[in-house]
C-alpha cells in the first residue's frame, strides 16, 4: 500500500477530486495548509502599507491507495492539477505499513 500526499493549488481541488473519483478512489483527506516553494509569497496593501506574506495558501490531499493503482493516482493528480505555472505543487509517495477500518476492524487493502 502507498500513502500519497499531494500539495495542490486550492482552485484545482474539485477537478482533482472528480478525476480521482472517476478512477475509483473511495476517499481522501483534504487539509487547508500554508507554505512556500519557488512561488514565494504575495503582497498585500492596506492604505499604502505593503505587507509581503511569504506563505501562500495551498490544499494538501492525503490518499491511501493499493500498490497497483498508486502510480495511476499520482499521474492523475499530476495531470489534473497542472497549470504549467510555478506553484502548482508537489506529490509525495510513502510506503504505508498498515490500514484499519475502525467500524469493522478490517485491515490491509480491504480497509481502503
Amino acid at each position, binding site marked *: 500500500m502507498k500513502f500519497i500526499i499531494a500539495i495542490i493549488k486550492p482552485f484545482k481541488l474539485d477537478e482533482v477530486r472528480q478525476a480521482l473519483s472517476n478512477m475509483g478512489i473511495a476517499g481522501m483527506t483534504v487539509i487547508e495548509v500554508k507554505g512556500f516553494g519557488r512561488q514565494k509569497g504575495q503582497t*498585500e*496593501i*492596506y*492604505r*499604502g*502599507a505593503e505587507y509581503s*506574506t511569504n506563505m501562500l495558501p495551498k490544499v494538501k490531499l492525503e490518499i491511501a491507495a493499493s500498490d497497483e493503482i498508486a502510480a495511476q493516482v499520482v499521474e492523475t493528480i499530476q495531470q489534473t492539477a497542472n497549470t504549467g505555472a510555478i506553484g502548482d505543487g508537489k506529490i509525495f509517495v510513502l510506503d504505508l505499513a498498515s490500514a484499519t477500518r475502525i467500524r469493522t476492524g478490517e485491515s490491509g487493502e480491504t480497509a481502503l
Partner: protein
Amino acid sequence: MKSILFKGAALVTGAVLLAAPALAAPVAEAAAVVTEVVEAAPAVPNPGNNGFMMTATVLVLLMIIPGLALFYGGLTRSKNMLSTMTQIGAAASLAMLVWVMYGYGLAFGPEGNEFISWGKFFLAGVTPDSTAATFTDEVISEYIFISFQMTFAAITAALVLGSVVERMKFSATMVFTLVWLTIVYFPIAHMVWEARGVFFVMGALDFAGGTVVHINAGVSALVAAYILGKRKGYPTEPMMPHSLTLTMVGTGLLWVGWFGFNAGSALEANGSAALAMINTFVATAAGGLFWMLTERAMGHKGSALGFCSGVIAGLVAVTPAAGNSGPFGAILLGAVASVICYFFVAKVKPALGYDDALDAFGIHGVGGIVGAIGTGIVFSPALGGPGGDDFAMGAQLVTQISAVAATIVISAVGTAIAMYIAKAITGLRVDEESEVNGLDISEHGERAYN
C-alpha cells in the same frame, strides 16, 4: 447650525412685560405695542421639522454605534476588536451625559462671549415647550436641538480615539474624553456655531461641522497619537485589518447616518436640507471612486479599503460644504479630498513615522481641512454654489483659513493638556504584555471571536 437664538420662555415673559404698561397708554401707542406683542409671540415648532430633526438625530447615533464602531473595529487586529468598539460606545455615552450636565451650557448657554457661554447647566429651565431657532422664522423643540447637538459631541469624542486604539487604557480614554470635551470641544462648538462665537461672527462657513468635528477630531487624534507613542511592533510587524467586511458594513452605516448629520444641520426639512442631502450622495460617491483611481494610478489594485477610505474622505470633505455648495462643487470637493487624503495616508504618514492607527488624522483631519478651505471656493455662484453675486472668494478663503488655523491650535494645545491629565491619573498606556495579548482580553476580559 449657523445661528442659534433662543426664543423660548424668556421672550414670552418679555412680551408680557412690554404689554403691561400699554394698558394705561394712549390708544395709538397701545396699538403699536400690541403689534409688537403679536410679532414676538412664541413660534410653535412645525411637527414636520421636529419629526425630521428627531430622525436626523438618531441617524447620527447610528453613525457612532454601530457605524463608526464597526468601521474602526474592522480595521484593528482581531484581539482589539471589542476594545475599539467599547471605547467608542463608552466615550460617546460619556459625552452624552456631560453634554446635558454642562456641555450644552458651555456651547449654547444664554450668557456668554465670543469664546464660551454659560447658563442652562443641567438643562435648567428647558421644558417640552422650549424652542430653539433655526435659520428661518421656524423653531424646533429645544430638547431636539439639545439631542441633535449632543450626538455631534459624542461622535467627535469617539472619532479622536481612532488614532490611539490597540494600546491606550480604557480608563485613560474615559479621563481623556471628559477633559477633552470640556476644554476643546465645547468651546470650539460655541465659537463656530453659536451666534456670538468668534468664527461665526467672522462669517466662517461650516455647515455641519468640518472644523468643529473633523479638523478638531483629526488634529486631536494626531497629537494624542504622538503623546501616546507607537503600537509595539509598528511599523515593522504586519498589522492588517482583521475584517474589511465589517469595515465595509461600518462604512455603509456611516454614509447612511451622515444624511442625518449633514441634512439635519439645516435644522429643518427645507431646501437647504435637500441640497445637503444630494451633496452627501455625490461628494461621497466621487470620494470612493477617486481613491480607487488613485490606487490604480499608483500601480496598485483598486481596493475595498480604498473605496471605504475614499467614501469617508468624501463625507468628511462635504460636511462643511453640505448646504454651502452645488452638487458639482461637492463632487469636485469629494474627489480632491480623496486624492489628497490618499497621499497623506499612504505616503506622508509612513515618511513622518507617527502611528495614527486608523488614520483619524489622515482622513478626518486632512479631509476636514480640504473641505473647510474648499467650502470657501465651492460656495461661489460661479461653481453652482449658493453664494450671492457679491461673494468675494478671496476674503472668504482668508476667513476659512483663519478658522481652520485657530481650530488646529486650540485642538492641539487642549489635547496635549487632556492627554497629560489622563496620563497622571491612569498611566495612559497598557503594559507590554497586555498590548501583546490584546486589549479585548486584558482590558475587558472578553474575546470578540470564540
